[in-house]
């Protein structure tokens, strides 16, 4: 059953283009998407998903929104709290804190791939799930930094809370996502119809192109991963499963609809490789980016995108009965 879903997911052209990117690195091809095309694609995805979510939010009955938004916020705070001590078994404080933040935060592209998967399977989901995505992007950063400060008993340096809150609320990707969500909400389905060819019809194609680039990036990182040792690799395989399991429990307790549940679990399972590294570079410069980005990007991302999404869905179907 789960295998069927994995196959269905693999028949998603976007996922296949991701695999093509991996293959290109494997065979040492010189295929590459020149900068800044990937950055532009990533901005497009945020704009489109935000806008679509906003329009949906307006149309939807929003009653189902509050519990899932609350759960999202909770998870983004709680995940780093239990991930940090686990990682401390082997990692230095700044590295453990940065990885904890990475797994508390989320990956928009994993979310987007999951929502494309739902669409192909004709399973609906609420527009507020995009708000959940936005909500989970940054609190984990603050938690991670605070954890590091406490563990290092480092109060001297003057913890720049203001800068951290600012970075959390106004970093480019969060702002674009939230701004597009608001714009979609304001203009609604009728006002937004002119944007549909851009935000919806083009979406699967541009997502495929972006995932092709992700495949190239992940492929290159995979090669360099061995140098990090076994612990980070194993952690990057187990943490998403652990977080997904917890998310699954919460989704079950809240009796979320299947589509919402899958997206929520995927958010919990995913790890950030855009917002968190940029913030950590400022707030925890002692942490090793090759470690936390490598884990999120080279292992957790493909795990979720290729196997995780269909696997989580079959778990949900089994539980929801």
């Amino acid at each position: 059953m789960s295998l069927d879903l994995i196959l269905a997911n693999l028949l998603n052209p976007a996922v296949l283009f991701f695999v093509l990117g991996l293959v290109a690195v494997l065979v040492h091809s010189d295929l590459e998407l020149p900068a800044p095309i990937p950055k532009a694609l990533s901005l497009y995805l945020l704009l489109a998903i935000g806008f679509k979510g906003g329009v949906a939010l307006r149309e939807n009955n929003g009653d189902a929104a509050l519990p899932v938004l609350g759960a999202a916020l909770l998870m983004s705070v709680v995940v780093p709290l239990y991930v940090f001590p686990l990682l401390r078994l082997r990692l230095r404080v700044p590295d453990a804190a940065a990885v904890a933040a990475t797994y508390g935060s989320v990956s928009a592209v994993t979310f987007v791939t999951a929502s494309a998967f739902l669409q192909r399977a004709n399973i609906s989901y609420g527009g507020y799930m995009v708000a959940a995505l936005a909500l989970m992007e940054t609190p984990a950063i603050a938690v991670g930094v605070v954890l590091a400060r406490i563990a290092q008993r480092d109060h001297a340096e003057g913890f720049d809370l203001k800068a951290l809150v600012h970075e959390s609320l106004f970093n480019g990707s969060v702002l674009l996502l939230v701004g597009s969500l608001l714009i979609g909400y304001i203009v609604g389905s009728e006002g937004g119809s002119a944007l549909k060819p851009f935000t919806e019809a083009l979406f699967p194609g541009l997502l495929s192109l972006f995932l092709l680039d992700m495949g190239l990036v992940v492929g290159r990182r995979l090669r360099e991963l061995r140098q990090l040792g076994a612990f980070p690799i194993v952690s990057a395989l187990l943490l998403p499963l652990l977080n997904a399991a917890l998310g699954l429990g919460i989704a079950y307790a809240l009796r979320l609809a299947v589509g919402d549940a899958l997206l929520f679990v995927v958010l919990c399972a995913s790890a950030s490789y855009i917002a968190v590294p940029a913030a950590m570079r400022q707030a925890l410069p002692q942490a090793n980016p090759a470690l936390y980005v490598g884990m999120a990007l080279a292992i957790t991302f493909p795990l979720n995108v290729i196997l995780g999404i269909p696997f989580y869905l079959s778990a949900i179907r089994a539980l929801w009965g």
Partner: protein
Amino acid sequence: MRPIKRVEIITDALEIERVAQLLEQHGVTGYTIIRDVIGKGERGIRRGDELSGVFKNSYLLTTCEPEQLPAIVEAVRLILQQRGGVCLVSDAMWVKH
């Protein structure tokens, strides 16, 4: 033409604005930045292929009077220690205009 110190700094793309501000605080009046250069150093390869900006460098070229140099070098050194990168100083002639 008059002699001047030519200072070039390569560091994290996310850091380059801060370096520029620092230079201005030390009296530098002009600089040029090349965004998005790539490279390799003690901290490994930076291929510029990720979206976070963390694996991307920027290059900054500026000039200063010889007597400004020690203070500038001291300030830059601190950033390089934290975020990585290099700073090279050489002699040049400034074409007055």
